[in-house]
């Protein structure tokens, strides 16, 4: 599997699962607005994370912390949540997408690459 495929795939996984999780937590209130905003948040942070990891070789956990921090600000500013709620949401969403990504990555590689 080529690098570009990895990137695009991980971007789609992140978008899909974060949108689902946040909507579940927010009980589908303002559903479309939430999708729109989460999509934009991830569109900003995902390429940034890839850049920091691949090009600048930052530590993986440092990048995740940094992304959680940025997204917390976004939740605070755009959803008017408290800081505590914003950080919790951001942390949950990112952890969830990472775990899902790790879980399905190997089987996807086998499916796409070895066949």
């Amino acid at each position: 599997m080529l690098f570009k495929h990895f990137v695009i795939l991980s971007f789609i996984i992140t978008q899909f699962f974060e949108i689902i999780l946040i909507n579940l937590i927010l009980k589908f209130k303002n559903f479309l607005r939430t999708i729109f905003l989460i999509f934009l948040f991830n569109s900003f942070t995902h390429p940034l994370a890839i850049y920091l990891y691949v090009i600048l070789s930052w530590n993986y956990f440092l990048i995740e912390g940094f992304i959680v921090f940025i997204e917390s600000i976004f939740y605070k500013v755009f959803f008017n949540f408290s800081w505590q709620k914003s950080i919790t949401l951001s942390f949950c969403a990112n952890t969830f997408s990472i775990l899902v990504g790790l879980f399905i990555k190997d089987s996807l590689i086998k499916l796409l690459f070895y066949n």
Partner: protein
Amino acid sequence: MIFLLILVLYFTLIPYKKSLSNDISFNENLFVFENKIHCLIFKNLQNLPENKFLVYKYSESTALKLKRPWSIIEEGKCYEYGGEIFEVEIVNGNEIEEFKNYKNESIFQKENVRKIYDSREFVFDFINSDNYFFNILEILPTKYDFGLFIRYNAVSFREGEIKAFIKVEETLNSNKDFMTLKEELEELAKEFNHILRNCDKRKRIEHIINVNYENGEIILRKEKEVFLLEDNKRLEKDFIVNSHEKMTIDYLKLLEVIGCRESYSEFINYKKDKINKIDELSEKLYYELRKLLEDIIKNEYKKEFLLEEILKPKDPTIISYILNYVKETQNYIEKSSQKLTNEETHANKLEETKENLQKINSDYLIKSKSDRILKIYFILPLFSLLILLIYLVIKKK
């Protein structure tokens, strides 16, 4: 001189008239050929801004031979090796005229004249170059692309990666399959390089002589010295080569331009077994290498990067493009040897071939869409931030 002119006319007028047998014209140009030379062919000149042009300054010996020190570069034309390339910015508007005067060499000292050191964007680096090994691998229909440790050894690494690099190098150098693969590829490249030197049929046209038929008389007028390739060997105007992935198509077209298409196709057919052997070895090595990298590199992206640097599966569209190119050439050779009398069928066949090639080309271009997606991906943060800001402003209002 007159005798020479007649001689030259005799040997050039006949083939040229043949090529124009269907063209009834009262004003024709005669192309006066010189012997085969090694030269640079330019491409992508349309990428230059409108206020810039390129000048080719010949080596001393060439300038003496041509009685001219430099030329304004034109696409598809042939320029003898050993010269220098300059980029000229049009400031006063008379720069082109100045350069066509060929008198004042001090114009190269002007501020708007800049020497180009890296001319890869504009020059085919294929012919007469020492890096033949690099190029032959682009046009071999092998299933894998070869890079680090095979085509080159130098690559920039960060400190933490050097250990992994050394480990991989050591393992590969003690791997029998890898050494065989390397030797086979090197041998193929050398053989092909030898073939290239013999099949190169390029000719340079030294002058254009304008022929006018007026009142039943032929009037010859020698025009300014120009350099042109034969019409049927001139590059297409829309021939744009600007990415690494299109390199194979680039080289195959160039093979055609220099007259090596047939030799190349025969070479590939003749070496089928060797190419199959290379494929088998590469495939085996690829999985061994993947396993080895999994053991020594934990970072998924870095592992993929290094693997891609060394060995990576070639785009299947490229392989089929090469094979189709070879097949079409073989068909053409066979048909030519049969001396087909039905010219219409032949023309249809050529048209069909052209359509097929165009189809493959467009298929290939569609394939490269994922790169565009990646480009969009990396400018996405800017767009998303902009939209978020706009959203915020609207919300506050």
